[in-house]
């Protein structure tokens, strides 16, 4: 009888090998698409810690991407401080923010839809705030110096698309490994217990307040790193763009479509979404049609279909089919 773990691990190893070797197989454009997929797999995984594990629906995760991006970006812009140092400020700020939101919400017993609204409110508040924040460039945005792009300048995180691809691949694998480890640890069990039945969890000695805060903090910290990547990859930051609720929704699309609370869900969802939407844009461009907004309509339709017909996401159904 095949050991299920062995089957899973061999699939994983094959996938990892493929991803590492990918640059040898495809060109720069495909590589940038792959980088995007990995980015969404990563942020989806980070969001999943809060939602899938601890059961708290955050619709304002763009807050952490934005604050992380602006924190590291501002340090670089104003003081020339590289991202390796800047990331620590980004993480510290985002964890602090997450803890504030979490503390307020859990202390005042705000959950479900109200919690989601609270997270949206914080993100929107920050978006408008940054619009008026001159030090970070206000609504006009912040632009980071783009130096040479052919050489690998790891210290300042500048280089060819290949470097960004491997960086994001590393982050995605690290996030996956972290979440896999967390799930099997005491934290993972406690979070799932809280998610399933908070009252029963308390009766088993779990300080649910503290553990929920921990999930929020970890989720925020991970997302902050994504923000730093964002800043140094795209090199321009606009409050309207980076804090916008559409960014928050993009973050959750992967996990919701792939499967909330699972390890593979965010990865699968990100891949499906990005590939299909890119496919659609290509087909339309080929047909000579260019319509702003069509990609998002597509996202909406896919989300609708998944929520209606595969409420637990694609991965659980797929896993059952593949008997994994």
């Amino acid at each position, binding site marked *: 009888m095949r050991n299920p773990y062995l089957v899973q691990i061999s699939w994983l190893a094959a996938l990892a090998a493929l991803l590492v070797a990918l640059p040898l197989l495809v060109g720069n454009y495909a590589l940038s698409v792959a980088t995007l997929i990995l980015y969404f797999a990563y942020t989806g995984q980070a969001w999943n810690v809060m939602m899938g594990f601890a059961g708290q629906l955050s619709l304002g995760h763009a807050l952490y991407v934005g604050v992380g991006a602006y924190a590291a970006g501002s340090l670089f812009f104003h003081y020339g401080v590289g991202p390796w140092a800047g990331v620590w400020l980004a993480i510290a700020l985002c964890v602090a923010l997450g803890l504030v939101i979490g503390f307020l919400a859990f202390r005042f017993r*705000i959950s479900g*839809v109200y919690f*989601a609204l609270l997270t949206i409110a914080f993100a929107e508040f920050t978006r408008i705030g940054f*619009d008026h924040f001159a030090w970070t460039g206000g609504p006009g945005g912040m632009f980071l110096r783009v130096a040479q792009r052919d050489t690998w300048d790891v210290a300042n995180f500048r280089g060819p698309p290949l470097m960004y691809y491997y960086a994001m691949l590393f982050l995605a694998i690290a996030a996956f490994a972290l979440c896999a480890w967390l799930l099997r640890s005491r934290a993972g069990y406690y979070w799932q217990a809280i998610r399933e039945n908070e009252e029963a969890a308390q009766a088993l000695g779990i300080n649910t307040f503290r553990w929920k805060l921990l999930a929020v903090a970890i989720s925020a910290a991970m997302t902050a790193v994504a923000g730093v990547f964002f800043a140094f990859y795209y090199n321009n930051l606009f409050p309207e763009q980076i804090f916008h609720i559409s960014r928050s929704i993009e973050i959750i699309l992967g996990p919701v479509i792939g499967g909330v609370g699972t390890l593979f869900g965010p990865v699968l969802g990100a891949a499906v979404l990005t590939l299909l939407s890119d496919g659609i844009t290509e087909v339309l461009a080929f047909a000579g049609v260019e319509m*702003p907004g069509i990609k998002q309509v597509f996202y*909406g339709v896919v989300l609708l279909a998944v929520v209606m017909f595969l409420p637990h996401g694609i991965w659980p159904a797929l896993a059952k089919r593949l008997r994994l």
Partner: protein
Amino acid sequence: MPALDLVANVVVSGILTGLVYGLMALGLSVIFGVVRVVNFAHGEMMTIAMYAATALFIALKLDPFVAMLPIAAAFFVFGYALQTALINPFITRPEHSQFMLLVAVAIILVNAMLMIFGPDARNVQVDYQLESYELGPLLLDKGRLLAAAAAVIAAAGLFAFFRYTLTGKAIRACADNYLGARVVGLNVKHLYALTFGLGAVCVAIAGCAMVLLVDVTPPLGPAYTLLAFVIVIVGGLGSMGGALLGGVLIGVSEALAGLFIAPSAKSMFSFGLLILVLLLRPQGLLGRRA
């Protein structure tokens, strides 16, 4: 410090706009209060109404107040259909499932509008928009006054419906007790759909009124959704008076914030208020504790 009559005018203007906001929020309050659905597509629906009014005006020179009738009717049908086809099957599913469903609908709607109408602002220019009445130091825009009047009349109508008609009472019964209503023989799914239709009608009327006051762009959709939630939560979920009161409060505070701080910062104030209310008085000003 701006002159007192400027402030007074700004306040009055805020009240009038706030009443239209209130009608929009009323729709949401009714939908959430009865069907318990968090209509995350509420603002998008309002924006569609605004576009519809604009389109009818451009094509048929129809005054928005006249356009209210066909648009409201269409919205009623749309709301009824949405509830029946999409949401009713979801009643037993967990809360965040329903939420996601409407998030998906919202995404589709707002981007469909972007595709169809493009990102540029549209508006309606009616002759009487430039007229105004003088009431002492106050200068009341005729357009704004009529918009507010329409909102109040619609709200009164809805209130009367729930208070005095049999169907209205039946709907309130469903809100209070889903199982009990079914046991008594009420066709709850039909009544839910009816309620959603009525909520949509509120949005339609509010949209037609609003189109006289602001320009339409697709991003208004999510902005109005959030605004509707702020108003409903501040005013109190399930309280019709609360929705109107909340609307007026937000309208006035937005207007004042626009005057004293900066116009773009006004929604910041609304979000700050939402956070405070969620933390300190989640049942809102006029709501009952759940």
